């Protein structure tokens, strides 16, 4: 039996909970579940309402623009690029960006190698740099196929990688997040970092498309 002691809902009896079985609208059901969990955890003092709000604000403030700034800085500052490839976590820290509990590993696209990232086990993603992952990143289609037929998956994003180029797929985990450093598009050599940051899309940093000038 439940340890419910709120007093408003006597729970010392077995009864059906109409509306809480998954036969109702599923979004509504889980929306209620999330709200119920939040209320209970706050009442029990596990977290405070302020903790939840602060984390929500941080989440809402995350955007691929930050990742784009990192890439643009690497393109325009060779010393930063070196540090970024050696220790991604520390390098983005210089820019005031955090990786949370995880390490950042930045992988560089070259003339010979194209990199892409996936999380086959779950949905690990450099979310502090890019925001929440898109649905396709979390889909079975992407998670299962990226590691066995990456070129076919890339083609579904409209990206054709020549046969003589290596495709390297990086499988993320809870402690290690990858970010792709794409090649700087030709003709942008004299662009300022601010303008370069704007052409680096989220998908380019996941490695499923290439940035275009």
């Amino acid at each position, binding site marked *: 039996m*439940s*340890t*419910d002691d709120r007093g*408003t*809902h006597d*729970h010392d009896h077995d009864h059906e*909970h109409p*509306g*809480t079985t998954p036969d109702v609208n*599923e*979004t*509504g*059901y*889980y*929306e*209620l*579940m*999330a*709200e*119920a*969990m*939040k*209320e*209970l*955890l706050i009442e*029990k003092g*596990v*977290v*405070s309402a302020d*903790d*939840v709000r*602060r*984390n*929500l604000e*941080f*989440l*809402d403030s995350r955007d691929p623009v930050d990742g784009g700034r990192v890439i643009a800085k690497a393109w325009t500052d060779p010393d930063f690029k070196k540090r970024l490839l050696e220790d991604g976590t520390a390098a983005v820290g210089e820019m005031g960006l955090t990786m949370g*509990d995880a390490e950042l590993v930045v992988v560089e696209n070259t003339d010979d190698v194209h990199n892409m990232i996936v999380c*086959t*086990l*779950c949905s690990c993603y450099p979310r502090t740099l890019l925001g*929440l992952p*898109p*649905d*396709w990143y*979390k*889909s*079975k*289609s*992407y*998670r*299962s*196929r990226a*590691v*066995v037929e990456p070129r076919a*998956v890339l083609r*579904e*994003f409209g990206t054709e990688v020549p046969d003589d180029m290596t495709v390297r797929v990086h*499988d993320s985990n*809870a402690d290690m997040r990858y970010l792709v450093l794409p090649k700087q598009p030709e003709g942008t050599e004299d662009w300022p970092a601010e303008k370069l940051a704007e052409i680096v899309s989220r998908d380019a940093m996941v490695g499923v498309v290439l940035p275009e000038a």
Partner: protein
Amino acid sequence: MNQRQHDMGGMDASPVEASAHEAEPWAKMITSLAAAMREYDVMRIDELRRALEDLPPEIYEQDYFERWSEAMVNLLEEKGLLTRDEVMSRMDAIKAKLGS
């Protein structure tokens, strides 16, 4: 090969559908709730992943944040922080308050 449900590398699957669907407010809220618990070391990310991996297949196949919710309830119950019954009756109470 004994490959569990979450370990998806190499499984057969359909083409990738590149939708640009924004996370719903409740999904962001539950993500923030999980992040707040991580700050106090009450619930770690690897524990949540284990709880996700242990879900029955029919739940694991549900929408991403739906399975997160189910896994969180299981994990929090396991930790003695709340019970599924409490969550269920609170859901009823909220629903009644909303008048739906």
